[in-house]
């Protein structure tokens, strides 16, 4: 079994169990940005009524659902890891939290048919990928999240709803990080992106 196949089996299982989900993390930024390798696939699930033992039973013995959940401190969600030994791959389930952006991101999720998987997949919007990854970039300090944000903005060139992104980045205190990342994008990909003047380029007023 490959990582790809294991993700499709998980999606089918969640659908059969009636569990609302979305594929988040680097697979969503790959969808909107530039592909990169990753050894796990992140899912956000609305977990009401879902038990880990029920999920284990549905997935079967090729999957190992870790009974030890963990609390993620960057955005405050609970994670369960599912290992697929044959694929050397991990599937991570993040429980939908009460956080306002987590809720809105989940509400705005969209279903797309991925012909390469011959299956539907549910994904967050491109704007929500940017907003969410900025929180990780700032709160967890991971460089790969900054790169993902840069890539999504560059590839989506002109298609993003900046009012929406700014509303959340102002609320999360991640606007400075966003502006800093935008300045790293080659000029040809950042036309029509609102950006304040670069503070490092602003000269001090003359004393005379």
């Amino acid at each position, binding site marked *: 079994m490959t990582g*790809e196949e294991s993700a499709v089996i998980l999606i089918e299982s969640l659908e059969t169990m009636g569990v609302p989900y979305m594929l988040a993390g680097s697979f969503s930024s*790959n*969808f909107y940005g*530039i592909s990169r*390798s990753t050894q796990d696939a992140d899912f956000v699930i609305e977990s009401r009524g879902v038990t880990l033992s029920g999920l284990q039973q549905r997935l079967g013995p090729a999957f190992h659902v870790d009974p030890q*959940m963990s609390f993620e401190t960057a955005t405050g969600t609970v*994670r369960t890891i599912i290992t697929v030994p044959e694929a050397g791959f991990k599937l991570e389930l993040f429980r939908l939290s009460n956080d306002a952006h987590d809720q809105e991101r989940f509400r705005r999720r969209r279903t797309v048919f*991925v012909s390469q*998987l011959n299956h539907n997949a549910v994904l967050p919007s491109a704007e929500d990928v940017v907003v969410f990854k900025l929180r990780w970039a700032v709160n967890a300090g991971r460089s790969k999240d900054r790169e993902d944000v840069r890539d999504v903005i560059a590839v989506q060139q002109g298609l993003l709803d900046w009012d929406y992104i700014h509303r959340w980045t102002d609320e999360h205190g991640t606007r400075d990080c966003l502006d800093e990342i935008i300045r790293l994008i*080659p000029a040809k990909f950042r036309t029509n992106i609102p950006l304040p003047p670069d503070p490092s380029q602003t000269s001090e007023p003359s004393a005379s």
Partner: protein
Amino acid sequence: MNAESIRSEAEAIYIERVLRAQATPPGQKLVEGFRLFERSRGLMRDGVRHQFPDASPEQVEVIVQQRLDIVREMQDGDLYRPYQEPTP
């Protein structure tokens, strides 16, 4: 090669990557994430076989997985803490 020419070359490479991504169907980019992982895992396997020529295929898999787990632990840092479901 000075710093400015390196920066300029890096930007040209990045522009090329963005243009390629813009021309690629999003679904294909999504599955590339899985396939790139398969490829890098294959390369890791080759590296382990080279380092431990007497290792069995099963041992090679174990070592590859240990190395992937180390990378993962380093990336996670202290972001995660054990969580216990509150009792009702």
